[in-house]
Structures are given as C-alpha cells and as structure tokens.
C-alpha cells in the first residue's frame, strides 16, 4: 500500500491521528486545524519547535482511555502526549509497512 509518498502529491494523505499503535512514520507536512481557530498558527509553531517537522521520524507508542485519545508519540527520543486535534495537523508517511 502506497499512501502519499510525497508531501506535494495529490493522493489522500495519512495523518498521525489515523495511525495505529506501534507504527513508525515520517512527517511530510503540517496542515491547518480549524478547531484551534486563531491560534492554529502558534500550535503549528509549537509542534515544529518540539520536533514535529517534515522529515522527523515518529513512533506511536500508545493511546488514552476513550476513543484512542490522546496519543503518545515519540519524536527524537522524547515522548509527548498529543490529542487527536493536534495529531490531525501532522501528515505522515509510513516508514515500514503496517505489520
């Protein structure tokens, strides 16, 4: 399965919030999230500052209690808890195929 191997491709992209536990992915781009309203730009900036940049390798390490929310994600050896709303801003491509 080949999902969005290029950031600029027109095929539907995979977002971090759609990834299963244990998957390793690479960030392709950050997109807008209307839920954050006016501060969406500063959320993008903070995500980038924490290392969620195009090219970064991520690993989904766990989910919270209900509705698989929030997600625990490892980036550059640091673990972060993200909600689905934040994770949906991060477009990714799988590094290894789903097991």
């Amino acid at each position, binding site marked *: 399965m080949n999902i969005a191997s290029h950031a600029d491709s027109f095929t539907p992209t995979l977002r971090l919030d759609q990834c299963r536990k244990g998957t390793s992915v690479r960030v392709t781009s950050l997109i807008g999230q209307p839920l954050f309203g006016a*501060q969406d730009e500063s959320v993008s900036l903070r*995500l980038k500052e924490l290392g969620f940049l195009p090219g970064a390798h991520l690993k989904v390490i766990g989910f919270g209690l*209900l509705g698989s929310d929030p997600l625990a994600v490892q980036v550059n*050896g640091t673990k972060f*808890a993200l909600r689905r709303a934040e994770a949906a801003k991060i477009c990714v491509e799988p590094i290894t195929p789903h097991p």
Partner: protein
Amino acid sequence: MSAPIRFALVGNPNCGKTSLFNRLTGARAKVANYPGVTVERRSGTVTHIATPTEILDLPGTYSLFVTSPDEQVARDVILGKLAHEKRPDLLIAVVDACNLRLGLRLVMELKSLNRPMVLALNQMDEAKRRGISINTAALSQSIGMPIIETVAVNSQGVAELRQYLDTYAQSAQQPTEQGAQVLTLSDRQESVEALYAEIESIMSQHVIQPAHLPRWQDRLDALVMHPLLGMIALFTILLVIFQAVFAWASPVVDLIDAGFSSLGELVGATLPDGILKDFIVDGLIAGVGGVLVFLPQIIILFFFILVLEDSGYLTRAAFLLDRPMRGLGLSGRSFIPMLSSFACAVPGIMATRTISDPRERFITIMVAPLMTCSARLPVYALIIAAFIPEQTVWGVFNLQGLTLFALYFAGVASAALVAWMMRRRTAREEFPLLLELPSYRWPMMYHLLMGLRERAWIFIRRVGTIILALSIVLWFLATFPGAPEDATLPAIDYSFAGQLGHFMQPLFAPLGFNWQMCIALIPAMGAREVAVSALATVYAVGEESIDVALGGALAASWSLPVAFSYLAWFVYAPQCISTIAVVKRETNSTKATLFFTVYLFALAYFAAWVTYQVASAIVN
C-alpha cells in the same frame, strides 16, 4: 556601588534548572520529575563566590513564543520586560543531555538574542549510562558558547559552573542598558526548519546517540499507559496510599498519643491545682499535642506524593485521564495541579499556570480545593478513629482506610461535578495538550528526604505558631469568664467560647452540629488542623477528668449522623484564608474570589445537611 550581576537559569521544562539553582544557592526549592514544577521566578545568591551576584530560577519553556502563563514569566524575565527589573546579564542555558535536540533548539533561539550565555549540559551521568557520547569541546566550538558538564543532583560539575560564574562576575563591566527586545510570530515562523537543520548537522558531527531509549522505560510505559491496565494501576496506587496512611502510621500515632497523655498526667500530678495547671494541660498539651500526633500520617502521604512526582509517573496519569477530564471541561494538564492540591491547595492553585486555556485554568482553580488537602487529614483521622471500628473487610482492606478513601473520593467526585457544571457549553476554539512525558527515573533519596524534611518542618512550624496561638486564645475564651455561683451547667457553657458556640448553634442545628463543633469551625478558617486542637481544648476544658482521650470524648457525645455530617462539612469546608488569598492573586478578580468562597460555603452547608438528614433517617 553597582547593582549585582544577574544570572538567569533558562531551559526546557524538567531539564534540571531548579536542581542546579539549589546547588548554586544552597536553597531548597521543590524539585520533581514533571514539566512545570517551577511556575514563578525565584531569586537567590550564588554561594562561595567572591562577587555578590543574583541568580534567577525561571519556569521551563520550550520557546520564547509562549503558550502558558508560566512560560510567559520566563520570557518576560529573559527579554527584560518586567517593570523594575534589570535584564539578566548572563543567561545560563540548561540542557538535558538526554534530550539534546529539544534543548539545543531553545539555546539557538536564545543565542539569536545576542546575549552573553553559558551552557550547562545537565544529567551527563544518565546520558553516559544510555550510551550517549557528546564531544563537548567541539560542540562548544560549533555553537559558539562555553559548555560545562553538570550532574545537578549530585553536585558534579557545579563547582566548575560556580567557578565560571565567579570569573564572569569579576570581569564583567556593567552592560549597556538596552530596551526590551521584541519578537513577533512572523520573525520566527520560517526559521524553525533552518534551525533544526543546523542542529542536525551539529549533532551528527559531535554526538553519538543510540537509536532507542532503554527498553525497561518502554515496557513500563506499555503497562502504565495501557488504557485498561494503566487505569487499574492508577487506582491501585491511590488505594495503597490511603491504606498506608492509616495502617502504617497507627503504631507511631499511638506512641505519640500515649506520650502526650503521660505528659498531661505527669504535669497534672506535679503542678498544684489552679489556673496554670488548667492552662498547660487543657490549653497547651491538649491543643498542640492533639494536632502533632498526625505528623506520621502527613509524612506517609507526602512520601507517596514525592515518589510519584520524582519518578515521572505523574504525566502518565495525566495522559490517561485527559479524555475523561475533557468531558468536564478540563484536560490532562489540570491533573497535576489537582494532585498537588492533595498536599495543599496553595501550590496546587499556583501550578495551574502551566494550563494554557484560560477557561480551563479558571475551573481548575475553582475546584482544586475540593481535593482533600493534608490539613484536613487530622480532622478526618480523628473522627474516623473515634467512630469507625478498626476491622478488616474483604480480607485485605482496613475499614478506616476505606472510609478515608471514600472521603477523598467524595472530594474528587464533587470537583468533577462542579467542573462539569462550570464547563463551557458553546463550542469555542480548542487548546492543544502537547504534554511532554519525561523519562522515568528512580526517585532520588536526596530529594525524598529533603522533601519530607521540608513538609515535616512546615507542619511542625504551623503547630508551633498558628495552631499554638489559636489554642491559647481558645483556651482563654473557653475558660473566662468563670461560671457564676449558682451554675447548673458545666463552666464552659458560661465562657465566651460557650456563648459564641450557643449563639452560632441555631444556624448549624439543621446539620446536627452541637455548640462545641460550631466553636471549632471558626479557628479552622485559619488552619484546618485547628479544628482538632479546638475540639481538644473545648472538650478538655469541659471534662472533669483530663485523661479522657479526645476520640473517646467525641464518641461519647456525638451521634454517628453528627460525626458524618461534620466530616461532610470538612470535605467542602470553609476554605482556609491562605487558599482564598491565592485564589485572589491567581485570578486577579474579586468577583471570582467571592464566588469561590460563597460556593464552597454553600456546598459545605448543603452536603452536611443532606448527610445529617439521610444518616439520621437510616439510624432511626
């Protein structure tokens, strides 16, 4: 004379700034393993150096583009935006060597401010253990600032850093004063990628890093962050804490209790009858001793809180509880302030500064005092020990421990209900969670002992000052004026305290409170534990015999519904003055503070009334 040279410790949350600060200044500020322990700037003097200097410990921040009130504090100090405060002369950037990328990013951002900087590469021991190898000299060259390797938790490298600061302070001339620096969002937006690219190239040259974190860390996370097993683990931990508070403390509590009883008897036997003997036995020993016996329970409670804080577990619990808490208008970020409030609501309310959503922060402040603080523990413990039989249920649980758990649970459930009622109903913009989950580490003996010593000392100081003072005042009020010649009631009924209690009693009659209980409510506003010493004084003065233990006196004069009603009152309890003051300061609103005070009073009254009516109906 010129102003002292100012240093400021800056860095990511949880990288060890406060540990370094404590080492450099000899202070004992709170240290723990979760982001956001420090929410205020703290100032001290570097010890053992020649020049007088000032050093600031700042809240951790990931960036100068801040998203929460605690980060705002750090930014304002760094940029010199605080009124009446000189900009720091030298920035000491603290970077966790195990988390180098994230730390270096902030360092590079700070570097663009063109200010004197030195980098303290902290937690070098842990980095070496994980197989991270850093060519410090080359790294220092690449980023263009001196680097000092430190291990703040055991002083390594701190001497070297102190030496550097000393040399700097001696050679530094007064810097030319510049205006506050201004940064806008658009200044930076495009350069995050460039900065990271630079860091990647620097790190690939000078740092060798293993690809994986230690396996046990990931295995532990797989368990404690598991949606089901993790919740079971969380509840087990909490239940064990409450069991321990009762089961482990009781031998020591009994010992202290017996000590004070014998002291009372000894003094009673040696001193001649009279007002002095009454004062010492009924006022001092009964009042102060009554509260001091709860020290072991407070120590045990704090032991567990400190272990949870230092291990890195807290943020995992916040992660698990984020979704359920969101239904209440809160988030995982509110969890840590709420948990701190089990110790005391004052630091808990201050810890809400790490919450970026103003509405969520407000709700957290409003409900944090419903978490049962340690000052309420003596009140609960006294009444539970007097009314709940000590028996084992379901094989393992101690009934008294379960009752205590139920009281704490009542507070938590009420907080959930209040938050749910206050939550915002109209959909508005969301705020991100973005919470770092720090690596686990073994709780450090040093931190534990320091923390326990600090808490024990605070408690003893409260006993020796406010509780002692209130006990003395209360003894006077309960003793004077004496009973008239033709008295038919016990002498205390005629005293000022008795009159006040009788005056208040009709208001509290629907809750089943007698006038002695009403008296105790007033000094409890100053410090909750005083309810215990007040009851001790009132009952000791009222009783003929001095060797009746307070618990026994209560069991003899209160019915079970009354005891439950009093417990219910204290679950919501009139907040102590310091809590009200910190709510005023953190919300900066008289209206909010007034609302806070009134709603908690109303809730306490209502809950005690319901409890009394229901319990009476069941008992009859």
